[in-house]
């Protein structure tokens, strides 16, 4: 008779109430980690930003954990812009960036958190221009890159560069980065001279994806960090700073000597002067041990001579 027997109800009602309570409890804002407090308790440092730096930051975090088991560094990528946006909101302790923080971003951070962002140079990166391994091109000038990538640039076909590709593959496939990427901003500022990118490029979500797409696409050209080279699958082009000047091969040595034209600093930003565990961590990154990791990851350490493997 009763489609809803009392026994069911007796069980169901408490369960339903409990479920509602659990959901409500889940909505409560979580208290954030006890970042920045030194001492014997466990400390979590939130570190976010540049995809270029995410691998090296991960190794730093792991190696530092071996030395200081009470410090957890949580590393995530997303792009320099994502890291800087999170720093401005005050949700992380350290932002990794492969571009400078803009003045208005610094002002915004100060307005939001009351603290002036502090910048640390933790290494250098040479931005390599990649093409498919079967592409006969070996070098490219600064102007040619701008003609290929910038809005209003004339070059859209490989034949215009004097490169003979198999039939039907003449169209240059431009591989770029999503606009939150520091690599994207750096390339725009230093190679395109602040002009905009030509629309229609394939915008990848990571440094590694750029190299992978170039490796699988014969007619592609893309830019990514030196550390993401995959010899045998892609080829790094020599870059000449100006038409007529000799093209320079991208390498740690040429980036250090400032001969290679598209190299940039790798940066870490904190809110205000770092204290406690965050300070210890950044200090450690700048020691020989931390800088060797930079070099092993394919980037250029901050000091010459101190970080020989």
């Amino acid at each position, binding site marked *: 008779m009763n489609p809803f027997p*009392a026994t069911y*109800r007796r069980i*169901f*009602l408490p369960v*339903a109430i409990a479920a*509602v309570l659990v959901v409500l409890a889940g909505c409560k804002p979580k208290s954030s980690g006890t970042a920045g407090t030194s001492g014997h308790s466990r400390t979590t440092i939130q570190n976010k930003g540049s995809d270029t730096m995410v691998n090296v930051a991960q190794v730093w975090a792991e190696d530092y954990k071996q030395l200081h088991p009470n410090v957890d560094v949580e590393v995530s990528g*997303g*792009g320099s*812009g*994502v890291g800087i*946006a999170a720093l*401005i*909101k005050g949700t992380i302790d350290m932002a990794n960036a492969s571009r400078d923080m803009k003045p208005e*971003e610094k002002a*915004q951070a100060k307005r939001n958190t009351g603290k002036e962002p502090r910048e640390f140079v933790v290494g250098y990166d040479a931005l390599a221009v990649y093409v498919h391994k079967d592409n006969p091109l070996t070098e490219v000038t600064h102007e040619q890159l701008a003609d290929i990538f910038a809005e209003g640039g004339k070059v859209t076909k490989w034949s215009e560069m004097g490169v003979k590709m198999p039939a*039907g*593959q003449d*169209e240059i*496939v431009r591989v770029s980065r*999503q*606009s*939150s990427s520091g690599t994207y*901003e750096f390339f*725009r500022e230093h190679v395109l001279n*602040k*002009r*905009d990118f030509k*629309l*229609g*490029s*394939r*915008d*990848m*979500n990571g440094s590694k994806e750029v190299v992978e*797409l170039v490796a*699988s*696409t*014969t*007619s*592609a050209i893309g830019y990514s960090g030196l550390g993401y080279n995959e010899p045998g699958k892609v080829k790094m082009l020599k870059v000449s700073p100006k038409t007529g000047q000799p093209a320079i091969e991208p390498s740690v040595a040429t980036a250090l000597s400032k001969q290679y034209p598209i190299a940039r600093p790798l940066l870490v930003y904190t809110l205000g002067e770092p204290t406690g565990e965050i300070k210890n961590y950044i200090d450690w990154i700048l020691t020989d041990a931390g800088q060797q990791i930079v070099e092993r990851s394919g980037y250029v350490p901050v000091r010459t001579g101190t970080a020989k493997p």
Partner: protein
Amino acid sequence: MQCGPPNAPCGRWGGEKILEALVYLCGFSAIIFVLGIFVFVFKEALPVLTNENFSLSQFLFSSDWYPTSESNKRYGVFAMIAGTVSVTGLAMVIAVPFGLGAAIYLSEFCGQKTRETLKIVIEFLAAVPSVVWGFIGLTVMSKLIVQYTGAPVGVNVLNGGIILALMSVPIIVSISEDALKAVPDSYREAAIALGVTRWQLVWRVLLPAAKQGLLAAVLLGVGRGVGETMAVLMATGHAVHIPHSVLDSVRTLTANIAAELGEAPAGSDHYRVLFLTGVLLFTITFGVNLIADTIVRGIRRK
């Protein structure tokens, strides 16, 4: 104390009341959530509409998307509307015949055992997470497309369309199968008594009778296609470009929001325009649902 029918125990009756209130709340929560989401998204987008640097016609009809330009910021999403429409359209062209065909086979032609097996497999297809679909598109499909079509890049409309079709087929199949099953057996018996073939039965009797349900199935598939983000983000190449063929890379509205919202500083024009894109998506799905509703009502009235 008097609480309820004379011979019912008091506690039972109180429980009933609470339960009723809970169920009532659950029923209305959908409306509250939808309104809440719409208000929030619209509130975030609103300030940009009154901004003098922003024009709605440029937003809708220009394909210049330069949200982070240093010299000349332009917010035009036309290329992404074209991207969403092309990928979803292609997906439906593939998924609707397959989905309806599968549903007809399942409900009318196959035996009990085959049906059970097929249904489990099709439901499994629906359980694959969208990021896994995207990964398949990026690694497996893109290689096949380059190999067989000679396209320069394998991540394009075709890739995204096939992946989306695979994702929406399970929805289309299960809803249209239900719709076909809901056609009373008396219709079938009457048709067979008149001596029709099985094919005539499906074409002339069942499909017209189940029209509403089948339309709902297709439109839910469209909704899935318009709203899907992760898989198309990975499989379409993410290029701001109006496609001229199915082998061109595109960017969809959803993928653009997913890729750019994280970096856009809260409160900036870029951030607000992304929310406005959300409002646009909302409007598109609302429009699709409205059209569906009108058609279904029209059918009912006949």
